[in-house]
């Protein structure tokens, strides 16, 4: 009963199977497998794109970091330069003012000396005149003018020698 081979059944099996195969191939396998491949391709591409984007962003980040570093360095340099310039200016100003002060002092000292000399000269002349006048008044009667002058000159000479 069980092992009887029925050619009609074989025929119907083959026919049904082949029809099913052809129909399913059109109806199901091609769309399903196509969609599968499409999706796999898509995922692959997405992964590659993500990887690329990651690399790109890393590169950009690195670039930014370098730029920041450079900017910081430049700022540092500018500050340093400014400080140096300020220091130089300060030094220069200081030197200049010192020099000016010195000059001023020197000038003042000279002027003082000059005026002192002048004053001494004037005092000397005045002293000569005064003593001349005094001597004239005192000795006018007994001495002739020539003898008088000689004596005064003598006295003056002595005075100069003293001073």
């Amino acid at each position, binding site marked *: 009963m*069980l092992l009887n081979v029925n050619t009609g*059944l074989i025929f119907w099996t083959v026919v049904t199977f082949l029809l099913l195969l052809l129909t399913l191939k059109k109806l*199901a396998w091609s769309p399903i497998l196509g969609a599968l491949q499409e999706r796999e391709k898509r995922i692959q591409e997405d992964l590659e794109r993500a990887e690329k984007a990651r690399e790109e962003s890393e590169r950009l980040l690195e670039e930014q970091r370098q730029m920041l570093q450079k900017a910081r360095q430049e700022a540092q340099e500018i500050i340093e330069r400014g400080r140096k310039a300020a220091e130089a200016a300060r030094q220069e100003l200081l030197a200049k003012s010192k020099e000016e002060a010195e000059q001023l002092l020197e000038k003042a000292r000279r002027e003082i000396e000059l005026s002192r000399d002048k004053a001494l000269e004037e005092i000397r002349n005045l002293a000569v005149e005064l003593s001349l006048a005094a001597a004239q008044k005192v000795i006018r009667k007994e001495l002739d003018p020539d003898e008088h002058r000689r004596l005064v000159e003598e006295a003056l000479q002595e005075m100069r020698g003293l001073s």
Partner: protein
Amino acid sequence: MSLATWMLSMAAAAEEVAKHGAEEAGGKADFILEEVADHVLVPLPKVLGIDLSITKHVLMIWISAAIVLILFSLARRGAGLVPRGLANFFEAIVVFLRDDVITPYLGEDATRYTPYILTVFFFILTMNLLGLVPMGATATSNISVTAALAVMTFLIGHGAAIIRKGPIGYIKHFIPPGIPAFVVPILFIAEIMGLFTRHFALAIRLFANMVADHMVVFTLLGLIFIFNNVLVAFFSVPAAVAIELLALLIAFIQAYIFTMLSAVFIGMALSEEH
């Protein structure tokens, strides 16, 4: 072949029990073997020696094909780049078969044979499961059906191999290179025999597995009539239910095994080296 003889003796015993039981139970036991036994529904004339009558199993084959077609037509709506619902379910199975069954054994030829392998799997699975449905019958428990499927696998694999390698290259393929000349004829015969045995076993394996669980259920329920005691039913019915649950598992396993072996045999026929 001890399996086949065992099957035969089982079948004979089952028939005897069926007759006996039918007499005892008023024809009720017949119902159990309905799933395995075939009978003509619509008689048709013979064409070229082929009896075209629509039998119960022919009907079951058509119903299976129709179920597969309807399910995949329904699944079509959800198909696409982001599958939904039924399409998602079938896609998971298709991906499993493609990546774990077809591609490993067929390699570069995988794309060409994928439709065949997938159709084999879903067709056989539906036929197996139909036997577990009330009023249904297992078409795959008929040797003619499994033989037709096995022959198709054989013809596809070896037809493609002959076309690809040419008749001479195809025959050379049976002899591994670098063996002594006197061994060649023996080896050739052994290879050819192995080839037919493989595909014969492919048909028998599915057939026997599908028959077996119905036979066991039949025997278990038959015990009630043999002992002629209704108390035996308290043992027989739970045992039969357990066997039916096992049959559900076997339906999937055997569909998978037939599919996988089809892929393996086609891959073997197409491979360059033996």
